[in-house]
């Protein structure tokens, strides 16, 4: 009767109830960690060499140099911003029909499958890989970036729009249908008013993402601020690179703040 004598201590319930599974997972994780850390072969001499550059980079954040590459930065920013706006608009224009087509509850089955496959293709390809191919096809410059970002927008926006349409309240659709309306009136009076606030929110969010991605596609030659950034880093001009990064962070912060205000007003 040891239990009766010694007061038992309460313990919180473990996350995984089965002890075999719990300890097995812990052991597996430990083995994996050991193996994975073993593959990290660090060239310490190189790291020590790089420390000086790392310090210069951190110093660059404290004293960013906007002036020496100012013309390149302006050019890159203009390309990035115009690319962001046009690709978001075109992306939205294409995503809306595809998103509607990918909503199981309002379209026939064959349309649903076609639209879902378009979404799957767009989502599974990385922006930067798409950019490499588009640069090879249409040449260097922001037009390739525009195509890349539009393509990426389709997968993102259509998927979320379709899921949103699948979640709508069927009662209002039924009410519009009961007035004898056709499919398009049902769409514009029954479905779209319900998903509009979220669609606006998602579009603003995608505008943000497209701006951030526009800094990436430049690395492979698709125009934008990424090209300027790449050059600055390649030449070890960390103070210019820090200036560009600070500009990107600043613009993202402003646009996040603005879109949160717009979202609040819309919803």
């Amino acid at each position, binding site marked *: 009767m040891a239990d009766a004598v010694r007061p038992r201590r309460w313990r919180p319930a473990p996350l995984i109830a089965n002890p075999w599974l719990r300890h097995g997972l812990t052991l597996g994780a430990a083995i994996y960690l050991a193996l994975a850390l073993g593959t*990290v072969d660090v060239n310490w001499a190189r790291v020590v060499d790089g420390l000086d550059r790392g310090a210069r980079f951190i110093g660059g954040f404290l004293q960013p140099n906007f002036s020496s590459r100012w013309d390149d930065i302006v050019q890159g920013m203009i390309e990035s911003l115009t690319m962001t706006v046009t690709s978001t608009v075109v992306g939205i224009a294409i995503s809306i029909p595809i998103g509607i087509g990918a909503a199981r509850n309002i379209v026939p089955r064959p349309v649903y499958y076609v639209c879902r496959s378009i979404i799957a293709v767009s989502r599974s390809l990385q922006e930067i*890989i798409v950019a490499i191919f588009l640069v090879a096809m249409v040449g260097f*410059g*922001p037009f390739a970036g525009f195509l890349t970002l539009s393509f990426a927008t389709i997968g993102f926006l259509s998927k979320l729009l379709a899921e949103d349409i699948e979640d709508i309240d069927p009662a209002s659709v039924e009410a519009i249908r009961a007035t004898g309306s056709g499919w398009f009136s049902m769409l514009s009076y029954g479905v779209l008013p319900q998903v509009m606030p979220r669609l606006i929110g998602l579009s603003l969010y995608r505008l943000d993402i497209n701006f951030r991605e526009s800094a*990436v596609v430049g690395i492979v030659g698709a125009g934008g601020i990424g090209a300027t*950034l790449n050059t600055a880093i390649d030449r070890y001009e960390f103070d210019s690179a820090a200036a560009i990064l600070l500009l990107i962070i600043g613009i993202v912060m402003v646009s996040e703040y603005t879109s949160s205000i717009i979202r609040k007003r819309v919803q």
Partner: protein
Amino acid sequence: MAVQQLANGRFAWQRRTARAEWLNWLAWLAGVALTVFCWRVMTESTIWDYVWDAPTQAADIGGRMVPPRWSYFPNILKPLWDTLNIATLGTLLAVFISVPIAFLAARNTTPSVAFVRPVAILVIVSSRSINAIIWALLLVSILGPGILAGIIAIALRSIGFIGKLLYEAIEEIDAKQVEAISATGASGPQTLAYAIVPQIMPAFAGITVFRWDINIRESTVLGLVGAGGIGLNLESSLNTLAWPQVTLILLVILGTVVISEWISARIRHAII
């Protein structure tokens, strides 16, 4: 919604008032004007001959890409393993850094709303604004090429993601449980361990697995800038115009992404 009186004295329902109609129209006009302006600025330097030539180029590249060079497969097993390690170790590192930051950023756990919270939020926003590839680009030039740069790049980008979602989860916890625990006389750390942590644990696990899945996707391309993994093979195959190898690598990346997405969906389903 508005009602308008018609000439014959009857009332008709309108979707918007006249004022709203005008505002709506103006907003559309401004939007279209901005888009057209941006389009013109953007395409100033575009060489349209190349663009019209794109279908030919696409057909040409497409023709070279098939069939995939299957015999190359053994060469990418090691890089694939590196890619998985970059994503997993990067996520782990990010978890260690982002958990304290999330507690500092959440309104109900931060030591100071006026001073500490804005700093934590700034760290989160900065990390979120810069893509992992750009971090990798920087780190490769600082630390040299290799998977260490990849791991740190993934971690730096993930801090913002995990930090943001986690601090939002902390702000949404049920305050009654915290009150109940502190009413027993529990100290600060004890309240944290018995009232707050159990409430956010499922959200935390879900967020981490979700980010791990995104990181697998991102780590496959980090090699393009020299940060290790399967992207290195992609880069060298692209540079040598070995298109059949490119196809094989892309197929492997696609398969990896699909599998990791499936695993992450299963785990999140089991937790939540």
